[in-house]
């Protein structure tokens, strides 16, 4: 079990950690969402790496190729990406409304405002 054997998944882990960290640690609502998408993209990397076959090509059947990478992860991740952006759009719309309602997009300030009434 060499290091390179899992290098992709290592990086995926690192990205996942970074993303999750931003989401939990940062108070800015926009930044949280950016972190969230990093968190999600790390999963894309995980899936796609798993689908890769050394010496394979993109799974578009054509003359002269016999080894193709696994198409299924690609399909799944296509879906995942789209779902991701949909979530992002909705989240940002919420952020805009929150900004209008509270005048800020910093978590702490929003909380402090909710304490008062």
């Amino acid at each position, binding site marked *: 079990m060499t290091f390179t054997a899992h290098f992709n998944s290592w990086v995926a882990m690192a990205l996942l950690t970074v993303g*999750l960290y931003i*989401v939990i640690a940062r108070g800015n*609502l926009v930044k*949280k969402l950016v972190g*969230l998408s990093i*968190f*999600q993209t790390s*999963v894309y990397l*995980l*899936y796609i790496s*798993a689908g890769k076959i050394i010496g394979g090509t993109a799974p578009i059947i054509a003359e002269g190729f016999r080894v193709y990478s696994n198409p*299924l*992860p690609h399909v*799944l991740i296509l*879906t*995942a990406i789209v*779902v991701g952006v*949909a*979530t992002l759009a*909705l*989240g940002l719309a*919420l*952020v805009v*409304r*929150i900004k209008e*309602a*509270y005048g800020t997009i910093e978590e702490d300030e*929003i909380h402090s405002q*909710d304490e008062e009434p």
Partner: protein
Amino acid sequence: MIAHHLPALQVVVPLLAAPLCVMLRGARAAWLIALGVSWAMFIVAGSLLARVLREGVISYALGSWEPPWGIEYRVDLLNAFVVVLVSLVGALVISYSRESVDHEVRREQHYLFYAAYLLCLAGLLGLAITGDAFNVFVFLEISSLSTYVLIALGRDRRALTASYQYLIMGTIGATFIVIGVGLLYLMTGTLNMHDLAQRLPAVEHTRPVLAALAFLTVGISLKLALFPLHLWLPNAYAFAPSVVTAFLAATATKVAVYLLLRFYFTVFGAPLVLGEMPLPEILLALSLAAMFAMSTVAIFQDDVKRMLAYSSVAQIGYITLGVSTGTAAGLTGTVVHLFNHGITKGSLFLLLGCMAMGMRRITLQHIRGIGRIMPLTTFGVVVGGLSLIGVPLTVGFVSKWYLVLGALERGWWWVAVLILASSLLAVVYVWRIVEAAYFKAPGEQVAKLREAPLSMLVPAWVLVVATLYFGVDTRFTAGVAARVAELLLGGFR
């Protein structure tokens, strides 16, 4: 002919009805569509359950690609039961919704509101009925996104932050589920649950599978608001429009619990989940924590919706506790409490919606003396409260009965004691409502109120009556639940 396609129709009809609402754009038209579809779905669900009881598992290959290459819909007793619950609550909630939504949502938004509701329904139904691990994720997101939208429509600005918070936590949960599914796919090369169940034993003890179990557990726990991953729930329930709260409280978390059962017992299988890992112990600890901590928090809430939201988290503790016992009785308790708590909380939140017609926030101060002004509504709340306590002749008692038996069967007599003790906490917060509603003098704001219109009272009271009826005649609920439990423990291998 049509009977063969019921599994697909169960999900596709509401899914198709949603764009229809958007294109027609009429508020009333949208409501009528939602109404018709919801009841139709209840009928479909009923006939599906009947067929499963008659003929056993139904498999439906979407696109005629036989599984595991295509996506399969697989209906067994468990998800047929859940689908019936979801569609029943959906139908009642929508019948109730007109006045309440008129009151709480801007009229020009109604057609979109009902579209979002239909999508949420479709998402939950699809989630419950699918037999494909990745398809779970897709429909989970349909239901989640529509849920975020519906919550954000609440009148209080805190609805927005609640929705955002849920969006963040929900997405993390969904991503965890994707990771878990991915690891399973990695090890078996398939996404079909039934196929997974066949191929997992070969690689049962490899690390990825165990990691997958961990990720799925956490991810799903986020959706079902298992303490301490419940943080999104109280605000979401407290500030969403009444109709939405009622629908979510009765269905969303329940479907998530279904998902947990499905992955635990169908995909991984009881031996792995209950056997080699400390999972039951962890679940037990968290469940007990939820039961006591959350009930205690509920006691100190003044906002009634919030109080009941915390009580929901506590009740979820009972549900997961049943899983942790891993005994037939315990699982029966889990499955039956899915249904029982669903209808109880559904009725409670619908009735609170009746009160919300007259007041912006429902706090113990606002509802003083409301028992005289809105007798039917308030009495319904009392019945629901008694069911939360677990008083005999209510469904709550039935659930507790099986849960305690499960604990005793497992030899956990102290757990049995704790289950009963925790229901005493429910007495306290329920009685805070009762005393406020009946023994305080109504303020002038309350005095102005009138009893809610029948169009709202009837659906709410249907659930109240169900709460009482299924507390006496448990042949359907407990009967099915018992068969499900033995199915789950037997595994689908």
